[in-house]
């Protein structure tokens, strides 16, 4: 049994290194201008940017996973089939890479459906009343949502084949040439269906109901992947459709993004304030951040789009680390009830402060990177003179900030209760906080270049 466990860990590390090398070669060769393709796979600014995020977050979470599993096994005093866990885990990563790299937008749909299937298996990896409920809701709601997206894709195909009746492929790189000529009515119908469909998977309110359950019941490394990467992959698919539809639809599509973004942020507020479950708190914060990104996409000027893509990266980083840390806390305190987790900074200074800083980063406190992306988005909205939406945006962000600070007071400084064990020196979290701080103080030039390439794609450019 022990050898199997060790061998499974080797298997996991080998695949982790494989993804790291794959992602590094892909991003390096694309950004140095040596490699790009638009055959079956598509590498352009947007897809490589998202593949880079998957590589970064995937590596971080992969590094933290084996020790998490060991502690979980120790806590429950039984062994799991680790090999199966790692198999699903890497399949999940593979489907997400496939989602962002495939060219044909019909196949993108297929890939998104596959991510749902694989991740449902991971959510209910330890089958019990709660995980099964979460996984079943997730499967049913996301499948129905995605079916709407397929309906929209068929209508989009129809709109495209009216322009180009012969030999039409469904490849993004071909469709983008038709973007100005698509029929307005058909495109509007299709965009609404696709927005609802992929919006379900992104977790935009009011289609978000599966999200807090799935993200809170999954094993913590999986929660980190779900919040940090899966939501992004769905957002990526929607951005592609947006790039195709925006030239014709204009304000209609922008308003959908703004309205649903603001609703998502508003819905998250009460649930964050009254939350009693640590992981659900983070899940609702994901809904909020997806709302922010959606809002920024709706504003659609260079500043806001830059903010949106920067926010995607930084939210992924901060949220996946926060979920990993929450996993440590849940295992250490043997509860996820916020009322019973107190005084982290007193009992475990280094770990406690890094968790506090991660939550502050998520709340958007100034020195951290998420503040600068939110600031860019706000600035973009004011330049686009969207005054009322901007007012609501700032109001919601501030309310959520207060809600998180309120919880942080008890989590970090309440009456100290030392229970279980938490990692003494959380290297990963410290490194992550360091990165978040650097980006907040000074945006590195290569990152700006990468984001600008991605923004160009969203704005309907061909490269």
């Amino acid at each position, binding site marked *: 049994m022990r050898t199997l466990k060790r061998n499974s860990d080797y298997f996991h590390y080998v695949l982790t290194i494989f993804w790291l090398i794959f992602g590094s070669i892909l991003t390096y060769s694309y950004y140095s201008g040596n490699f790009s393709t638009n055959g079956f796979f598509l590498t352009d600014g947007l897809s490589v940017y998202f593949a880079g995020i998957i590589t970064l977050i995937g590596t971080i979470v992969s590094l933290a996973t084996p020790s998490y599993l060991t502690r979980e096994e120790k806590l429950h005093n039984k062994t799991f089939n680790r090999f199966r866990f790692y198999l699903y885990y890497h399949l999940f990563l593979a489907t997400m890479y496939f989602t962002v790299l495939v060219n044909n937008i019909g196949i993108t749909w297929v890939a998104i459906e596959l991510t749902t299937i694989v991740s449902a298996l991971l959510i209910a990896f330890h089958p019990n009343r709660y995980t099964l409920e*979460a996984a079943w809701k997730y499967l*049913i709601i996301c499948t129905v949502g995605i079916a709407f997206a397929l309906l929209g894709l068929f209508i989009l195909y129809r709109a495209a084949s009216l322009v180009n009746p012969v030999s039409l492929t469904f490849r993004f790189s071909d469709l983008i040439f038709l973007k100005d000529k698509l029929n307005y009515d058909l495109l509007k119908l299709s965009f609404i269906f696709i927005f609802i469909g992929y919006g379900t998977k992104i977790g935009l309110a009011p289609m978000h109901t599966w999200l807090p359950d799935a993200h809170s019941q999954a094993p913590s490394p999986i929660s980190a992947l779900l919040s940090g990467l899966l939501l992004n992959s769905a957002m990526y698919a929607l951005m592609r459709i947006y790039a195709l539809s925006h030239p014709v639809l204009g304000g209609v599509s922008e308003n959908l993004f703004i309205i649903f973004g603001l609703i998502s942020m508003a819905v998250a507020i009460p649930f964050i304030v009254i939350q009693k479950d640590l992981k659900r708190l983070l899940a609702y914060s994901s809904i909020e951040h997806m709302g922010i990104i959606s809002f920024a996409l709706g504003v659609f000027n260079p500043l806001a789009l830059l903010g949106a893509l920067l926010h995607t990266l930084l939210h992924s980083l901060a949220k996946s680390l926060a979920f990993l840390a929450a996993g440590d806390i849940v295992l250490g305190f043997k509860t996820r009830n916020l009322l019973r987790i107190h005084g982290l900074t007193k009992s475990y200074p280094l770990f406690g402060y890094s968790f506090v800083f991660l939550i502050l980063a998520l709340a958007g406190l100034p020195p951290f990177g998420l503040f600068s992306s939110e600031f860019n988005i706000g600035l973009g909205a004011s330049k686009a003179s969207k005054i009322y939406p901007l007012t609501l945006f700032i109001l919601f962000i501030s309310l959520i900030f207060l809600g998180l600070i309120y919880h942080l007071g008890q989590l970090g400084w309440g009456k100290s209760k030392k229970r279980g064990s938490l990692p003494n020196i959380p290297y990963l979290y410290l490194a992550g906080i360091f990165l978040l701080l650097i980006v907040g103080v000074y945006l590195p030039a290569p990152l700006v270049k990468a984001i600008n390439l991605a923004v160009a794609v969203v704005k309907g450019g061909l490269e």
Partner: protein
Amino acid sequence: MENNLLFLILGLNFWLLYTNRISRHIGGIAIQSLLLGYLSLFLAISQNQDHFFWPGVLTLLFKGILVPGFMYYILQKIRVSDLKASLVGPKLSVTFGILIVLLSYLETSKLELIAQTRQDYLPVALSTFLIGLVLMVLKQKALLQVAGLIVMENGLYLLAIAIAPNLPFIIELGILFDILVEVIIMGIFIFRINETFASSHVKNLQNLKG
């Protein structure tokens, strides 16, 4: 011929709305998928539209035989509770169905641009899709929800025939493959739900809130 097939496909939806027996639902979606595959083959052979051939064959194989067969296998293995299987009674369900069909006919008659090919497929496709959705919402047993999903997918397949006839085959293949995998995974979940709660009634799945 086409119209008869469409009429039968639409009619089966009402049977599914009316009944709550899982075995009847499995039979219903099997017949509906077989009719759909047959329609596809009919178009391929009689109207020389070759691109409908392989999707038709795969629909017959996957949705007509493999998926219902697997669902029947699950049904044999699990205990089916006698709890109420539907949120509303059969009469109200069928009324919903009629409203959906009327609405679909009204809505699709307005869409003139879509209507360049196969106008009469559109309302059937749309109402099958929506009735599938209603089935998933109303029926409270896990297997019935899977059946509702297949009905939705059948509606989408009809829509693809109607408005996207030259859709690349690889997409059709991907979609069908997805459905097959999805049903298998859902089957595994139904086994586990049944083990954990001693029933596959969705009423048990209401613990997570807030």
